[in-house]
């Protein structure tokens, strides 16, 4: 009998997340670190919004363009833009030039790393396919 299976670890993550939220709310109400704690909570809400937007937009892309990954890159660019810009603004960056530099750097890094790992993944998939076709 397995005591800790995959779903156990997922339950652990849920528990940690809820415990963190409760702790943060308690800290916001009962200590003098209210402002810092609200920053963290706002950040978490913004993260959830970005996640929700991503889920909706990626699904929409798959529905409209079921066989093309290209629109997914558009969604990724948008999410990085909104995420970096939004977080920067929430954390107090008001200078448009600085925000633009942050976004450009995040886009380059995010898209670059996605392209790199995606190409590796595609290559592995197709190499395995060629191998299994030879074996058949």
């Amino acid at each position: 009998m397995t005591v800790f299976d995959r779903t156990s670890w997922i339950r652990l993550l849920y528990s940690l997340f809820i415990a963190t939220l409760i702790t943060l709310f308690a800290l916001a109400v009962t200590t003098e670190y209210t402002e810092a704690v609200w920053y963290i909570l706002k950040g978490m809400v913004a993260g959830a919004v970005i996640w929700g937007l991503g889920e909706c937009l990626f699904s929409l892309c798959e529905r409209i363009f079921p066989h093309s990954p290209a629109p997914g890159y558009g969604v990724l660019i948008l999410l990085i833009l909104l995420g970096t810009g939004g977080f920067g603004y929430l954390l107090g960056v008001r200078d448009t030039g600085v925000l633009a530099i942050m976004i450009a750097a995040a886009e380059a890094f995010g898209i670059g790393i996605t392209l790199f790992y995606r190409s590796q993944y595609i290559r592995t998939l197709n190499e395995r396919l060629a191998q299994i076709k030879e074996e058949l």
Partner: protein
Amino acid sequence: MIRYRLICAKKDRELLEAVCRAHAITLDETAPCVLCEANIPYAGNYDILISFKKEKIDALMECLAGSPRRESSILMGASDSHFTPMEIRTIAYIRACGNDTFAHTARGDAYKIKHKLYELEDGILPRGFIRVNKSEIVNIRHIQKIVPMFKGKLVLTLAGCLHGVDVSRNYVKSFKERIGM
């Protein structure tokens, strides 16, 4: 081994002989067991006479062979009111549309077949075929390229298929296992 004499319309003979060969049924013009196509009058001698409809030849072959053949090399496909034996290895993918099942060849032809997807999966198709979503089975030999999508789905480019075929998220794990990932 029992041998059979085949009595059928001249135009169907080549096709029916091919089906018999595919099912390892031996034909002999002097055999006392006669397979006679329905509506063909037969007045010769025989010990056993089996009358069959041409479109039910697969079922007859299965009866004569004793059980459904495992990993058959031929499937009967219907196209424009005529029946065609298809070599299974030429099939690129098989798609279920409502109550019908269609086999699409690598050359782009489509034939209606009588089997359901689960029947095909359960022994008729060889191991080069794999279920990729609830309505499609593909032949791994005819996959030209695999493209992953952003939400975990895979899209397969197949010979004879203008659009891609999806490996839905529920089948991605088994598909990757099948190709050794």
